[in-house]
């Protein structure tokens, strides 16, 4: 009897854990949920839409989930018509949000979308401009179920209790992330914080004096800070835990780097890389996959976990003791890659989905998703399915595997820039005005 009770407690805990989506791209930044969200839904008819909640302001941050709570961030300007400019374009202009803003952290009830609390972390006129595809609240929050951390770039780093009490805040200075070629083209910060043990780690790549740092979750005390010779980047660091300890892997223009997560010591570096870097690394199969897509250098690297030192390949080589395989072209620009089962998937801004054998790098297929359009959100996956979200409101569901198979095309009535979250069987899709909870209601695929 006792064994059964322990087993059920264990399973309940595992199940609860499995429902958490604690940071950008979920557990271990992998983008994979444990449940089975539906393949099809219909927002107009309400089919499989459990609730939708209006979120004020503008943000490309993903929702995060712990237990029965969802946390979102947003930046609310006095101009309520603020929106994104979607599409495939290459001009570098910024949006100059000169009106007063309020940067907010909100907690919602996962069961019904009700707003449980809302805190204004900062207010004022934004210190930097933003990219037309970005927002003044782009980094996703992070939580460990006790503390919720929100990073608002130049407006600071904030930690709240799950009841909404401000624990501490930190000013990390001006985060003038923008075009390397013209600092006047400011695009705003987007790298999300991650939590490691009782610390929060942030990657601050800006025009000058870039760094990666860790702060104590309870007090905000700086635990370590490592300077980076980096220009602006927008990827989120990825925590990779191996037999040699935990390392923080950062995508960067001047070098992809791994740091000791406890001390900030640089462990390895790898180049070359794109001059504009937006994607987040992903670890699976004992490999760390890093990609970037700004031409002319658009690499995909599969780095062996545990590698140390300068991992740069010799000229003409695509692999080494440290690099399982690589490509110098084919890397993607905005959506971060994902590994599901035996395959690595990359999604281009233009909707081209490419599948690779994750272990060998052999390209398995390349297929346009849908009829065109532009993509900024990273793919997420659950139940053997990939969810691919276009800026124009399309969510394509593709079967994971060696052959492309489109399972469904769901149309949402809003711009979709944020990467979705998955909590159990619930898919949380953030449109530019609402957060939607999508779950199978009744029989389905």
């Amino acid at each position, binding site marked *: 009897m006792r064994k059964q009770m322990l087993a059920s407690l264990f399973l309940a805990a595992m199940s609860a854990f499995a429902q958490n989506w604690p940071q950008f791209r979920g557990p271990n930044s992998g983008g994979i949920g444990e449940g089975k969200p539906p393949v099809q839904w219909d927002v107009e008819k309400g089919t499989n839409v459990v609730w939708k909640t209006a979120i004020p302001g503008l943000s490309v941050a993903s929702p995060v989930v712990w237990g029965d709570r969802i946390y979102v961030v947003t930046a609310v300007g006095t101009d309520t018509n603020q929106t994104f400019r979607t599409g495939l374009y290459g*001009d570098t202009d910024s949006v100059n949000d000169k009106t007063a803003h309020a940067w907010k952290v909100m907690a919602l009830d996962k069961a019904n979308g009700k707003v449980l609390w809302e805190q204004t972390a900062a207010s004022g006129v934004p210190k930097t401009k933003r990219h037309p595809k970005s927002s003044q609240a782009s980094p996703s929050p992070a939580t460990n179920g006790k503390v919720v951390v929100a990073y608002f770039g130049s407006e600071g780093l904030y930690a709240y209790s799950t009841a909404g009490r401000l624990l501490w805040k930190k000013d990390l200075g001006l985060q003038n992330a923008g075009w*390397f*070629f*013209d*600092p*006047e083209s400011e695009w705003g910060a987007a790298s999300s914080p991650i939590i490691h043990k009782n610390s929060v780690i942030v990657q601050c790549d800006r025009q000058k004096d870039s760094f990666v740092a860790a702060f104590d979750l309870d007090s905000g005390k700086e635990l370590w800070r490592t300077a980076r010779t980096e220009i602006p980047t927008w990827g989120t660091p990825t925590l990779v835990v191996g037999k040699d300890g935990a390392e923080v892997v950062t995508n960067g223009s001047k070098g992809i780097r791994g740091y000791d997560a406890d001390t900030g010591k640089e462990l390895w570096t790898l180049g070359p890389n794109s*001059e504009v870097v937006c994607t987040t690394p992903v670890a699976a199969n004992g490999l760390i996959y890093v990609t970037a897509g700004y031409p002319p250098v658009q690499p995909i690297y599969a780095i062996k976990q545990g590698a140390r030192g300068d991992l740069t390949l010799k000229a003409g080589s695509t692999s080494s003791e440290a690099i399982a395989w690589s*490509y110098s*072209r*084919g890397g993607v620009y905005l959506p971060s890659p994902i590994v599901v089962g035996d395959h690595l998937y990359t999604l*281009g801004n*233009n*909707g*081209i989905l*490419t599948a690779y054998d994750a272990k060998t790098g052999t*390209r398995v297929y*390349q297929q*346009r998703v849908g009829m065109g359009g532009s993509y900024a959100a990273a793919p997420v996956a659950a139940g053997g399915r990939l969810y691919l979200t276009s800026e124009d409101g399309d969510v394509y569901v593709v079967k994971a595997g060696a052959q492309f198979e489109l399972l469904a095309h769901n149309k949402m009535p809003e711009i979709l820039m944020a990467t979705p979250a998955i909590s159990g069987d619930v898919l949380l899709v953030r449109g530019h005005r609402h957060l939607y909870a999508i779950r199978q209601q009744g029989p389905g695929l």
Partner: protein
Amino acid sequence: MKCILCLLVVPLLALADKNEDLLAAARSGDVAAVEALLKDGADLEAKTAYGQTPLFLSVMQGKTAVASLLLEKGAKTDVRDTFYKMGMIDMALQRKHFETVRTVWAKDPGLAARSLQSVVLFADKDTVAAALASKPSQEQLDRALNMALDMKKQDAAELLQKAGAKPPAPAPEIDAKILESYVGTYKSAQIPVEIKFWVRDGKLVGQVTGQPEFTPRAKSEKEFVLASVGAEFTFPATDTLTLKQGPGTYMFNKVK
């Protein structure tokens, strides 16, 4: 020995700071600061990590007053950055800083002629006319007209033809069977893209995965050109393709 190194290193560091400041001042259009920094020994041709000089930055940002000052001081006009390999005029035209562009051309008319293709793509009629007043060579005129026709820039094409640009020779008639032999999907081991070709209305049409389709102009039975992106397609045999674009040459094989 240490003291000598200090004497050398400290001034170099100070100069590096002045150069940084000059680049920043040029970018922001601060005439007074630019003047003061140059007087103080900052390098007129200081460069950013991407090879941009103070003149490049001022022109790129449309800061005409700073650009004029730097030109008076003798700043080099034929500057290309090291990343995009673009001239400052190209960048300024894209951003529609036409007044600044004409200011530079007044000092270096040859630059106007050399920028003619960018002018055709981005400039207003007055700026096209100003570029043509610099008397480009026949080759420059013809290349610019080719670009204007490809990009359907009718106004620019008319001005160019009035200036003496000759339209490209009519594309040769290619036998339908030869065109059909090129139809298929081509893959390269050098770059992870596929190019499909098919025939429509007697013309070869191509499409790179994920990009809009294009219709290259035939130069000969085996050679086709897409002037707007500087790409040349050659079919040495019916199941192989060579793509030349910029500094790269890529070999493709037909896979289906």
